Every structure is written in C-alpha cells, then in structure tokens.
C-alpha cells in the first residue's frame, strides 16, 4: 500500500465533492487548502466563524487589513456579496444547521463518526477549544481531512477515540491520504481508495470492518 496522495491532491479530491453554491466553513490548517482547489465553474461561499460570509483569499502585503481576518487570525479579503455579522449570529448559523459543509482536521475519527480534534489530553498542554465543538456539529455534512496514520503508524480512523471527544457521531466523511471513507449508519464504507490501495488492505491495517463502495475506474 505505497500509494498516498499529497495534501494538495487530497484537497482537490475533497473540493470535487463540494457542489456549486455550497456554503462551506474550512477549519484552520490543511482544510484551508480546499479553497484553492474549487473547480473554476463552481461558486462556493466561504463562511468564517469570526463573523463573515463570502470570504476571499489572502491579500497582498500592501493590502493587509487588521480588521479583516479569518478564524485562524490570518488576513483575508472580502468578495462582492459579502456580509459581516457578530459571533452570536455566526455560531447560530453553524449550530442551526445552515452551513452545507464543514471541513475539519482530526486527531481521530471513530467508526460511528465521533471526532477528536481539540485536545491530545497531555497533562502539560494549555487547553483550548475555540469553535471546534461548534464546528463539529455545525454543518449538514462534516468532512474530516487528515492523514490516515500517525507518524508512528497508528491508525487515526478507529473503533473508539482515545483522545478527548470534540463531538459524538457528527462526521459524515473522512478524507485521508490513502482513501475516502463514509461514516454510514450501517458502518464505515470506503468510497475511494487511491492508487493500488485495496479495501482488504485497509481493513487489515485499520482493524475495522469496511464496506466496499468504491466505484471501479475504467482500465
């Protein structure tokens, strides 16, 4: 199972699943790459939970406006048709189920869609949660984008999360460097395995029963 795709390829793979017109919140880190890979014929509206819809890309250095930032506190721009609102309204949009998609990073995802992405539970760490728990419930579809294995080879898609939970049963899909998984009521399904990766291999490595929903590609 040598096949892994790059972060950029994965972002493009995920972006392809977001339809025209969707309202999307991209979490801090790798998920922000998705914005760069939206097909040019699709109009996607980006939400940032610090209070804006229709966020644009980063400005050039001469146009940085400290009053205009994203949830990662990076400078961004405003596209035509943007709107600003307060934090209460912004989190109401999420909690009320108005966002179509939310793309988050993850430490672990369980077979039932539990997400752990806010705390490693290390005793020395400064705890911080921000909008993670709200975001994890904050869209009709919650996509997690992460490596399938830790650097030392442990699976991050697991039967039960070991890290402290962010939310229970909220993840709909998991996009990884090896495969794309769907968390379905009947179990975890593989919808796309990259390159020469097989569902049987993934089952062995993850130690999880997997449903094969890959679409055979021609050739």
């Amino acid at each position, binding site marked *: 199972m040598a096949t892994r795709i790059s972060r950029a390829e994965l972002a493009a793979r995920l972006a392809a699943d977001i339809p025209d017109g969707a309202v999307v919140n991209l979490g801090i880190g790798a998920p922000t790459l998705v914005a760069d890979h939206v097909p040019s014929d699709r109009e996607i509206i980006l939400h940032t939970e610090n209070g804006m819809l229709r966020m644009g890309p980063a400005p050039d*250095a*001469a146009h940085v406006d400290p009053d205009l*930032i994203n949830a990662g*506190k990076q*400078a961004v721009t405003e596209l035509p048709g943007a709107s600003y609102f307060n934090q209460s309204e912004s*989190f109401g949009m999420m*909690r009320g189920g108005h966002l179509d998609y939310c793309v988050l990073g993850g430490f672990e995802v369980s077979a039932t869609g539990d997400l752990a992405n806010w705390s490693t539970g290390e005793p020395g760490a*400064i705890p911080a*949660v921000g909008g993670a*728990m709200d975001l994890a419930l904050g869209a009709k579809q919650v996509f997690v984008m992460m490596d399938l294995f830790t650097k030392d080879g442990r699976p991050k898609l697991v039967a039960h999360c070991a890290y402290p939970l962010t939310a229970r049963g909220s993840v709909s899909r998991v996009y990884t460097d090896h495969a794309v998984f769907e968390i379905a009521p009947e179990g975890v399904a593989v919808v796309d395995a990259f390159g020469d990766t097989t569902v049987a291999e993934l089952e062995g490595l993850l130690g999880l029963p997997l449903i094969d929903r890959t679409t055979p590609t021609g050739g």
Partner: protein
Amino acid sequence: MIDKVVEDIDAAIADIHDGATVMIGGFGRAGQPVDLIDALLRHGAGDLTIVSNNAGNGDVGLAALLQAGKVRKMICSFPRQNDSWVFDGLYRAGEIELELVPQGNLVERIRAAGAGIPAFYSPTGVGTLLYEGVETREFGGREYVLVEALHADFALIQGYRADRLGNVQYRKTARNFGPPMATAATTTIVQVDEVVPVGDLDAESIPTPGIFVDRVVPVGWREWTPDGRYVGGLVDVNGQPVETGIDPHEGHTKATDHKPSGTEGTR
C-alpha cells in the same frame, strides 16, 4: 441632553473595581479594545475575572494586564495561540484560573445574559470532557447540555464610529464579540476611532444601538481606518510584524493627515 462621550479614557474606566467581571471584545487582535485595556492597567484594579475569546497576544493589551497579575480568572474559548506566552506562563505556574467554554456556547451565554434568558440548551459539548457532570436533556431524541447565561459588571469594546447617543458601528470582522458583549454588562464602555454627529450613522446599520452603551471614548483613527486600507505595512497575513519592502503609504493619505473633526457630541 444625552452625551455618552467621555474624552478622558482614564475617567471612562475609573469605576472598574477590584474583583469585577470584565468582558473584553475582540477575536485575536481584531476588535481588541487596546486603549481601554491599557487604561485599565494604569487604573490598577485587580482580582479581575476576564471574559474574552482569547487570552492575550504578545506583550500588549490583555497580555500586559495578565502579566501585571491583575487577572484572577479567565473565561475564554481559546487561550492557546502562537503568541500567548504570557497566559501560558501564568497557567503553567498555577497562577491563573481558567474556565474553558466552547466559542459558540460562550457567545450564546453572553447573548442570553443580554436578552434576559437565564439558561438554554445547546448541542455543543454533549458527551465531552468540558461538560462532564453537566445536566443534559433530550429534545426530539437528541441530547443537549444546559448552559447558563454569563453576565459581567463591565464590557470593554472596540467600535469604529459612534454618536453621543451611544449608537455604535463596527468595521468588518472586528465586529465579532462587540454586539453581544455590549448587551451583557451592567456598564458598557466602547472605544471608537471617531465620534460623529447624531444622524450621521445610517439607522438601518447600527449593530449596537445606544440603549446598550454607557460610555463612548474616542481614541483617534487607527492607521488603516481612514481609507479602509492598512497603511502601516507592519503586519503579515498572520498578523505578525514584517518588513514588506513596499512603501505602504504610496498613494494613500497618511493617517495623521486626518484628525477626527469636532463632533456634535463633544462640542
């Protein structure tokens, strides 16, 4: 005649007492009322409980207040940032108490306090460490946690423009916590770039009506506010100081060329 404008920033915050609960607006640096925080530090009140999304950046503003040992407890959602070394040090040394609240619940608690709602049910945090032992209840087959309103004695907020009646407008994503916090404190103090005559603010576009505001403190335009384009050239996309090599003032009016004009509210 109503005139909520207080020109002397030290006078504006002078009644903040030891042990007060103080909300401080802002998300990261955007919307952080730095001049009010500096005044609070000069004022010297201590044993404070601070409600703010973050726990200070760098060595200025809220971070300086923390460094001076004036804060007993932080209620926030995200104290850990790449430049939050002051809070980090205090926390590791056990010198500050932390109440960690998910951001959406934090702002909804603030909004509830301002709207006379003592408590509500939220889906956020169900089944997590942060809500262990907290009462839950099912509605429509889904589980929710009971969350109580969060009041404060004072709210310190950064606005953009205001009039003497206390109507406040914000600028872009610096709006963030301003409107809900303005409703949730016994005394709300707003620093603004400029005080304008009554009637100059569009009645259709007042995120914080004057009913919520007790004092308005004009602090002068920030570098970027006169023409909406940052002319300091001092921060990168991450808000960190940089040398860009670009002359940021080229083609721009210098901020110092603009002085807030005499206003109806302060004449």
